[in-house]
């Protein structure tokens, strides 16, 4: 309950701060809308040249696409600003301020800054999802909608944890910028259905670097129903990543000396 109250305080501060810079708020909102627009146009263009992609027709692929837009929007809203500053805090020795607080430092540092403008984008991404669902000519498996929504939130967590794994080396190295650049480049792999990847790349992208399951598995749960093996795979990857992040965070804090690099 204490953490819920704290998070509500984060939200209050974030919204009031965002309202101070209204034009910047608007520009950031439009920037993410441009990202959504580019992806919608891209998928519509691809389907001018094919009937299916990764086993999905245009209606199913639209739901998948809207799914990864929602995942992206959740990350931009909840984690992105915090992750941007974290390496700087570590390298400058500014973590002390957060470590002495009577709450989990990981909770505080990863959730403190809620991006109010991206929240508006999250609503737009959900709108695109509703459009994608409404455009499907066949009856929708609406009973699976709660599972789909929950799986998208889990997908967003997986995305955030992979991102976190590229930030945590800041505890050991002067800069983790290269790894983060790599993360942003590789994140585009989640924007295509997982079944287009084959062979060793597919195994890699669904286990060690699980970008391909972030949005694809939730869409598969929705269109194809809950497959026990697929669900176990999804949860195992999430748990594995969660454990690794916690372990590296603890090891990193042990290594942290407050001195700036």
């Amino acid at each position, binding site marked *: 309950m204490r953490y819920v109250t704290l998070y509500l305080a984060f939200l209050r501060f974030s919204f009031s701060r965002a309202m101070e810079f209204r034009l910047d708020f608007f520009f*950031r909102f439009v*920037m993410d809308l441009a990202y959504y627009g580019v992806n919608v146009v891209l998928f519509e263009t691809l389907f001018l040249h094919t009937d299916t992609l990764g086993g999905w027709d245009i209606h199913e692929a639209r739901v998948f696409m809207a799914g990864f837009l929602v995942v992206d929007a959740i990350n931009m809203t909840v984690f992105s600003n915090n992750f941007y500053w974290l390496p700087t805090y570590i390298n400058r020795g500014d973590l002390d301020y957060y470590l002495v607080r009577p709450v989990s430092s990981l909770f505080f540092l990863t959730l403190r800054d809620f991006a109010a403008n991206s929240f508006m984008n999250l609503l737009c991404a959900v709108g695109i999802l509703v459009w994608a669902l409404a455009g499907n000519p066949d009856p929708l498996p609406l009973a699976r909608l709660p599972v789909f929504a929950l799986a998208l939130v889990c997908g967003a967590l997986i995305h955030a944890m992979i991102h976190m794994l590229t930030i945590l080396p800041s505890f050991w190295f002067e800069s983790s910028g290269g790894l983060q650049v790599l993360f942003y480049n590789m994140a585009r792999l989640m924007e295509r259905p997982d079944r287009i*990847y084959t062979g060793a790349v597919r195994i890699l992208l669904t286990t060690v670097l699980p970008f391909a399951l972030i949005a694809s598995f939730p869409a598969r749960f929705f269109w194809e129903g809950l497959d026990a093996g697929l669900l176990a795979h999804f949860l195992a990857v999430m748990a594995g990543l969660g454990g690794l992040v916690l372990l590296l965070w603890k090891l990193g804090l042990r290594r942290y000396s407050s001195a700036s690099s």
Partner: protein
Amino acid sequence: MIWMGRYFLSEAKKAFTYRVEFWVGFFGNIASQFAVAYFLWKAIFAQRGAVSMQGFSFLTLMAYYLIAPLMERLVHGGESGQISRDIYEGGLSKYLVYPISFFNAKLMTHLSQTVLACGQLCAVLLLMTWPGPFDLPFDPLAWGACLLLLGLSILVQFAMTACLELLAFWVDNVWSLSVMLRMVLHLAGGSMVPLVFFPEKVQTVFHYLPFQGFIDLPTRLILGHASLLEAGRGMAVAVIWALGLGLTARLFWQRGLMRYSGAGM
């Protein structure tokens, strides 16, 4: 003119610093973009059972996706935000007292950041012209036209970035506008999909935008998929945009300076 050369060299040295991040970014970008394109088009070609689509065989399309990110890198240059940062932090003041032009200095910075990308592009093209799977055709006229088009596109890109960043005189944060421009460039430039895959009406619109000359047209010239007539039209469009954007940037600069206090934010 000598100062411009010296400025260019000093900025080029800066561009070579932080080499690890630079190369990780370079290889990461090329590899991930190529991997996505490879699997995506492999799936589409298999589903269609086609040998070629819109005049592209699978192999030519892969060559396109190897060259396109390098073209984009070359035209885009390096880090954005240089002009706006000077406005926000008050660094612009030094240029007002120096006997050098602010725009020429920034153009040199922009060009210095394209040097490495130019080397990377040349190396990849050289490898691709070698007898092998790609076996690129070498047509001196087409390659020359490509070079000229790229030069003009670099100027257009610089003028476009300058226009956006000069808005920093009035707006608190222009970073998001630069990101937005990059996204539009990605799509309308042909980095995500060659422009011939878009519906014809959309292609007509793209012909009048400057982005086609950034990635799609120069890449297709190299691949032997675009005529010299198309190149000429692309150059004419680029010249018009460069002039228009250059004049707009000049107007923004003159108006913006009236608001500039030099105190930083």
